[in-house]
């Protein structure tokens, strides 16, 4: 875990120094003459050996949390990241909520009613959902629910209503993966003996499913959902661009289009760190759900 993190900081750092385009030239344009150009390179410390610069970069970032200044808006990247982090966070949380809600229910229904029309329908819609590009799905949701019906604002941020369409779009792809996983997990648990014992006790089928089966089936689903959470961030980048949601995703895309390297550097680091953190949280939550692991 730690070495991976370390390697990523090196990659993020090298990013600025290996990509084409001189940072000073990008920040200040062609106008400044050679002499002030040299002076600025000195002041920014671009002439020091790479290792020293890396040391300063790590010091600034890890200790002071200072990700440097955006070339474009000359504002502190860390400030911008903090403000936008909330937007992406809510979006991913809400879409994960949709994903689990839809994913688990459909998964259970199609598992319990195996080979019925519902099950086949569930499977077809899942595999279709997995083949729909998120951005197109977003555009379609926007066309239908915002433009045609006008129930929701088409894009932008503001009230909770703005959050519904983007989160549903983002959540839908992940929901499809959760459906498949829940279905296979539930099917496996249904074959277990203790389910037969529960039934032998005269327990109602619904209680057998929603308490006995679900409780056991959910453990692997939670782990998988945790992993999916990481991929949600990737998806968020696209969905934020479609719905003009001012989160970290659209900030990264703008950064790339304007070659704003401090922004790209910070976000790549942050996204991968977030991804690793989530995997860790999933491992921890695994223990919480499954008593057997807890006492080990």
């Amino acid at each position, binding site marked *: 875990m730690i*070495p*991976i993190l370390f*390697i*990523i900081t090196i*990659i993020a750092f090298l*990013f600025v120094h*290996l*990509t*084409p385009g001189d940072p000073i030239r990008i920040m200040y344009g062609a106008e400044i003459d050679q002499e002030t150009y040299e002076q600025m390179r000195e002041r920014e410390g671009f002439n020091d050996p790479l290792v020293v610069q890396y040391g300063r970069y790590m010091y600034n970032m890890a200790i002071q949390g200072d990700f440097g200044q955006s070339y474009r808006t000359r504002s502190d990247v860390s400030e911008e990241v903090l403000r936008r982090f909330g937007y992406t966070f809510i979006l991913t949380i809400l879409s994960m909520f949709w994903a689990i809600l839809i994913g688990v229910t459909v998964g259970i229904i199609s598992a319990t009613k195996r080979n019925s029309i519902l099950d086949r329908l569930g499977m077809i819609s899942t*595999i*279709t959902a*997995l*083949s*729909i*590009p*998120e*951005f*197109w799905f977003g*555009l*379609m949701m926007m*066309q239908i629910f915002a*433009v045609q019906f006008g129930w929701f604002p*088409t894009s932008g941020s503001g009230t909770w209503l703005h959050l519904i369409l983007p989160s549903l779009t983002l959540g839908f792809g992940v929901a499809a993966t959760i459906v498949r996983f829940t279905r296979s997990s539930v099917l496996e648990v249904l074959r277990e003996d203790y389910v037969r014992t529960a039934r032998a006790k005269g327990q109602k089928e619904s209680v057998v499913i929603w308490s006995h089966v679900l409780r056991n089936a959910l453990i692997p689903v939670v782990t998988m959902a945790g992993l999916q959470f*990481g*991929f*949600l*961030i*990737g*998806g968020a*980048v*696209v969905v934020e*661009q*479609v719905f003009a949601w001012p989160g970290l995703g659209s900030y*990264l*895309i703008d950064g*790339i*289009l304007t070659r704003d390297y401090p922004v*790209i550097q910070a976000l*790549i680091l942050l*996204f*991968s760190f977030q*991804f*690793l953190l989530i995997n860790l949280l999933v491992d921890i939550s695994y223990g919480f759900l499954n008593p057997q692991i807890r006492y080990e």
Partner: protein
Amino acid sequence: MDKQKKNSPFRIFLRKFLKQRLAVFAFGLVIMILLVGIFGPLFAPYDPHRPVTAQYADKGIDVDQLTSSTVQLEGRLSNGEVVDQSELPQLQTETENRRIASIRRTQSGVQISANTSGATEAVIESGDVSSVAEILVEGEVPLDDVEPIVSQIIIAQPEEAFSIGDEYQINFEALKTDGSEITTIEELRAYTEEKYGADEEEDTSGFQSGSSENEDSASFQLRSLTEDVVTVNEQGVVQFEEEGEGIVQIQSGDVSSVVQFQVGNEQVEPILTGIYLESTTVELTDAYKHQTPSSMHIFGTDHQNRDILSRVIHGTKETLLIGFVSVAIGTVIGTVLGLLAGYYGGWLDSLVTRMTDVLLAFPGILLAIAVIAFLGAGLTNIIFAVAVFTIPVFIRIVRASTLSLKEMTYVEAAKSIGVPNTVIIFRHIFPGTLSVVMVYLTMRIGVAILIGAALSFLGLGGDITAPEWGSMLSAAKDNSSNIFHATFFPGLAIVITVLSFNIFGDGLRDALDPKLKE
């Protein structure tokens, strides 16, 4: 004996696969898509790069795509002569609503060009005389019927000269666009009040802009322009006061004509009395863009009026290219690394696994975006980015199966008889992993196409004007936000392609699954 041969692993695999009707159907679709990708451009109805209007001619489709036309007009002098439009003094042209149609003078005459569907009026003026043409621009939505308007006024020009104290009753015809006429002054006055009266409401928009623009359009006028020579009363009766040249003007809103009198025996110079249009109604079509799906354009046209079906067909090749090439690269590199890491183990294994962990530390599309940020946008970079994103997946599955195959006795047997490692790897172990690799290959193609489309949607792709599905959607998002068909069909193409690959991949995987009964 043949019973024995029948049970070769591949034949079992094939039988299991053929049992899944859906997967076979998907396989058919995949083949069909590949064919479209390769031969499609030959059958595409239109050239995807050029607007359809330019191609109707050489396709033999004579749709009256009249988006602009020149207006034939001539001036009439008081002595009855006709004057060509080029000699009309300071000819001025203007349309009432520039967004529906615009008018301007060109070397070849007065040209009206349509902008968006609707109805408006064009005023053509030269000095005191002017006349009006009605412009109808047909779009997808049919125009509600526009009531006829007075287009030009023809006043009878008296030949004989007059003397002081005479009287003369003016008679005229006000021609309407539907051919009907108004001949009495009261009727023309009532028509003008009703038509132009309403337009006068005060501009309360609260925007203050330059005062130069909107001078007032006078309503009905019946007046003498040479008060001292002639006077005219409400009923149009002219009194001659003095000798000289007398001019009386009749104006109904934007349309106005004059009549000239010679009072006394001094010859008067002929003057322009009116402008007459050959046709008073100009019908144009707004066939500029976003034509809705029709028999001519099954998927309709996009914001540059290019045929979407042809663009989708041409886009297939590029999308499949991204899908296949990137996954192919990813597979080859991933498989080789997986084999080596799995077989040799030791530092190579830990290095490769560490690398895979790092690559997998980035959530899917972000890894591709990071590569694009590093290399810059472009089709080849997209292919490479998606390949990088595919490598770790194959390393993992191949390494896993190599580890298990390595323990097999037949591998030990080969080792024991001195077969070199490389041969063991590629002749003995690799075929074992082939089946798993094949299955994942098909499934990753779907994912690769999705990521490729997402990248070009985000503007990180190649040429933004290219008929590639991702950039078509990106353009549609910006230019045709409320046009359904422009966004729907390219997306549908992606879904169908990816769906068929996924179902086909699932079919393969299930066929390989030992649990599944034959």
